[in-house]
């Protein structure tokens, strides 16, 4: 499993990428995720329908849309987090660097080691700040020793990147639960990047943060997007417009026969197009604030 994924990662760029690169100033990376006709069910309830989407390397992709339209649901498909919900079922084709993520024999644990996640609700472990950040590196065997040396560096680096080092450096050994909500969320970001994943999935990482911390996180995303691919769910339209290269707008359809709501991907394009010249009238009314 390990070998297969890394082979896939190092595959040469396809020809399509080259022609597009020649066309415009924007350099496009490889396709990281390719979703075709993805449907997600919770029991009999279809939460999202027929999603077709390609997420590119070294880019920030934003998911926007009204509450309940399935942004979190789609995001959690990307690192097989939905496996943990007994009633959840994913249909369709999800490829990560060309590999079928849901094929038999794919180890969800390996998938999650490469595709890190920051959750919608801050969920620090009831351990010290240090142990929170060190949790991933320890468990994945990145470091040999349980404390000190390399691990200290990894922890400090991750905390710095997540813009929480100054607040945390004097209390590394105190419980993470004693932090404010916004600090906890940044700690969770640090925990996710400490394992050095290839992709970072962030579910509304800034919803509990003040503008300064938000700006830090956005800076961080810009800095690290040359190494990672980032998918971010956000309710903040300006944030999507500011940080992302591409934006996917999801919306809900009411099913006439059962009165349930199913999420659909309405439009997916370069962010500037979504915000300046969207193809779909629903996108336009959402991004201009007339619907939501």
């Amino acid at each position, binding site marked *: 499993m390990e070998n297969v994924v890394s082979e896939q990662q190092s595959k040469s760029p396809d020809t399509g990428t080259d022609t597009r690169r020649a066309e415009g100033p924007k350099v496009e990376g490889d396709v990281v995720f390719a979703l075709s006709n993805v449907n997600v069910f919770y029991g009999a309830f279809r939460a999202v329908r027929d999603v077709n989407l390609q997420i590119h390397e070294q880019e920030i992709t934003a998911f926007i849309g009204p509450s309940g339209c399935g942004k979190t649901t789609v995001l959690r498909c990307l690192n097989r987090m939905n496996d943990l919900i007994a009633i959840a079922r994913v249909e369709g084709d999800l490829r990560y660097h060309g590999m079928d993520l849901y094929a038999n024999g794919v180890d969800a644990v390996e998938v999650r080691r490469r595709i890190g996640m920051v959750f919608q609700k801050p*969920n620090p472990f009831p351990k010290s700040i240090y142990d929170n950040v060190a949790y991933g590196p320890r468990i994945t065997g990145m470091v040999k020793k349980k404390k000190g040396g390399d691990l200290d560096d990894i922890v400090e680096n991750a905390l710095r990147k997540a813009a929480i080092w100054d607040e945390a450096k004097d209390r590394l050994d105190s419980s993470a639960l004693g932090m404010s909500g916004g600090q906890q969320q940044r700690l969770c970001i640090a925990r996710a990047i400490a394992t050095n994943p290839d992709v970072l999935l962030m579910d509304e990482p800034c919803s509990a943060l003040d503008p300064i911390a938000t700006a830090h996180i956005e800076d961080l995303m810009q800095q690290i997007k040359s190494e990672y691919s980032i998918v971010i769910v956000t309710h903040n339209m300006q944030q999507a417009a500011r940080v992302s290269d591409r934006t996917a707008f999801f919306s809900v359809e009411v099913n006439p026969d059962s009165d349930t709501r199913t999420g659909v991907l309405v439009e997916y394009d370069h962010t500037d197009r979504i915000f300046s010249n969207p193809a779909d009238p629903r996108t336009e009314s959402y991004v201009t604030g007339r619907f939501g």
Partner: protein
Amino acid sequence: MAIVTVGDVARKNAQTLQGAGRDVGGTIFRIAVAGTLYVSLLIIGVLIFDVLFDGWDQLSTRLGGFLSGTLRSRSIDDKLGVHQGLYGSFWIAAFVAIIAFPTGIAAAIYLEEYANQNRTTRFIELAIRNLSGVPSVVYGLLGLFLFVEKNTILGFIGLGWLVDLTGGPTPISAGLTLAILVLPIVIITSQEAIRAVPSGLKEGAYGVGATKSEMIRTQVLPYAAPGILTGTLLSMSRAIGEAAPLILIGAISGGLTANPSFVDVTALQDRFTALPILIVTWVSQRGRDEGFATAAAAAIVVLLVVVLLLNMTAILLRNRFEKKRG
């Protein structure tokens, strides 16, 4: 009529903020709840005072002798005491801890984290719940057939070797029986503690690439430890206090001469008694010899102290785990 503004309404409503103590129903409820608490505390207080008072003759004049003494036919006897009972109860507790705790906690982990939520699982959980309510005499009967008597139906279906293992009516049989008795309680309380682990913690662990067993070891068990501990140690108190199953298994109420020390494992193959059995025996003999009433009360004090020590350990350990968990 003058125009009423929003501000007017708010000012008027503000007057009604003065109303503390007007909740009569709530006050009555509070007094009733506190009342029942104090009544039960009073009853326990009277009970403790009563046994202390009754047993004082033994406890004050010859505590050491009483703790190291044995079963005797007369109450006026220098060698009368509870040591044989302490030996039995100690080893019963040891068997419960060694057998019921790991099995019960493992079963709870399996049911909560691994088992598919299907009909079989639900049936097993229902069965465990029912088993926790089965009267202890029934477990005594099970123990008798499984571990003590050979020519039973269980012997015929090939379980006779169990009797050879335990040696019949021995502390081993008693310990195994009580381990079975508390097993459902251990499973249920552990399950509840495991179920209370926030799903956010589990997702957080999976999110950085933990395997299921790593997640259970690093998140579920530390978080659930205080609850598991409380449940298991309470079930231990229950096991130590049981008399009925031990009577069926053949605990001895008279004529037990050997008085082994706690570490003497050879006596595990001999006949035995236990603290609750001593109490029952002495209470029943007080008509013939009044001094046994004092001995019984003193034995109750000893049993209470053991149980209280166990519960205090449980509380201390729980607080330590809870502090760790933050």
